[in-house]
């Protein structure tokens, strides 16, 4: 996806955006999730950890879709990390963490390449001659909080 360095021309509301801001759905976008209700080896319900992204391509038709995806997988990885802090031997949780963390890292790289870096550590992914980090919207700005 081509973009201008200054990021001013990036259209953040793509045409096919149909993400609902349904109050109860929160960060979950329009993707369906394949719910499995099996109990895992740690004795907890895994349906909350269903794997909606397992075979999914990272959505990148517009910035807000990609940000939404980054928010989702980052939250999944973070919440499983907290669980692992008190259940460090749970193999299933470890697998989930690795999966979501890998998706998160891929998506962060893709964001840096397509729109600009969200973290200073991914500034290398941008091929920009100026300091693109500061040009990215801040998250409290309406355009930065888009999902």
């Amino acid at each position, binding site marked *: 996806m081509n973009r201008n360095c200054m990021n001013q021309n990036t259209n953040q509301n793509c045409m096919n955006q149909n993400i609902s*801001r349904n*109050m109860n759905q*929160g*960060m979950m976008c329009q993707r369906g999730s394949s719910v499995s209700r099996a109990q895992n080896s740690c004795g907890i319900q895994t349906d909350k950890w269903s794997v909606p992204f397992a075979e999914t391509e990272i959505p990148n038709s517009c910035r807000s879709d990609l*940000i*939404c995806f*980054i*928010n989702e997988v*980052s*939250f999944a990885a*973070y*919440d499983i*990390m*907290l*669980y692992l*802090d*008190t*259940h*460090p031997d749970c193999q299933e949780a470890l697998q989930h963490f690795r999966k979501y963390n890998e998706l998160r890292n891929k998506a962060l790289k893709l964001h840096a390449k397509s729109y600009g*870096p*969200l*973290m*200073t*550590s991914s500034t290398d992914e941008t091929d920009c001659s100026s300091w693109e*980090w500061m040009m*990215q*919207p*801040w*998250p*409290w700005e*309406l355009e*930065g*909080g*888009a*999902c």
Partner: protein
Amino acid sequence: MWHYEKRLEYPVKITTPNPQLAQYIMSQYGGPDGEMGASMRYLSQRYTAPNRTAAAVLTDIGTEELAHLEIVAAIVHQLTRNLTPEEIQKSGFGAYYTDHTTGIWPQSAGGYPFSASEFQSTGDPITDLTEDLAAEMKARTTYDNLLRLIKDPEVADPLRFLREREVVHFQRFGEALRSVQEDLDAKNFFAFNPGFDAPVSCNSCD
């Protein structure tokens, strides 16, 4: 060491400003049970954590509370955009406006400045983790109180997310407290302070 990510943990996009709600919600920024106190409490308490679990839970939840601090600030900021002097006077936002215009400053809904005396770091991990359980419930109650007043779904949505996180943190702190107690003598958890009298320093692979 911390790194900043230029995104919120949960998105905030509020189209209709409402300074009265901002006045209430800012309590979760710098009020008695707000996110500033939460992050400072956990990140301060972790140095006397007696096992790997408690140190990790305090560090990781303390870090998430910093992200929540930013979410609350974003809500207050977006609720106080483009205000007219008339709106400020009518909404009850005038007292805050007088000192801070629409800048973000840590205070309670009632105007008390943020104070470290709203939390403890006792150096006794059983005491600290028990306080942390109460802190999560106090923050949950505050979010419940706010959600009763808020009709705008764009404001209620991120607050519901924050409320749910208090419940998850409560669970993790309960597990951390249990892990500390399991390392102690079940006949008397209070025989000594594991953060002072007999500090545990285990390596990460034991």
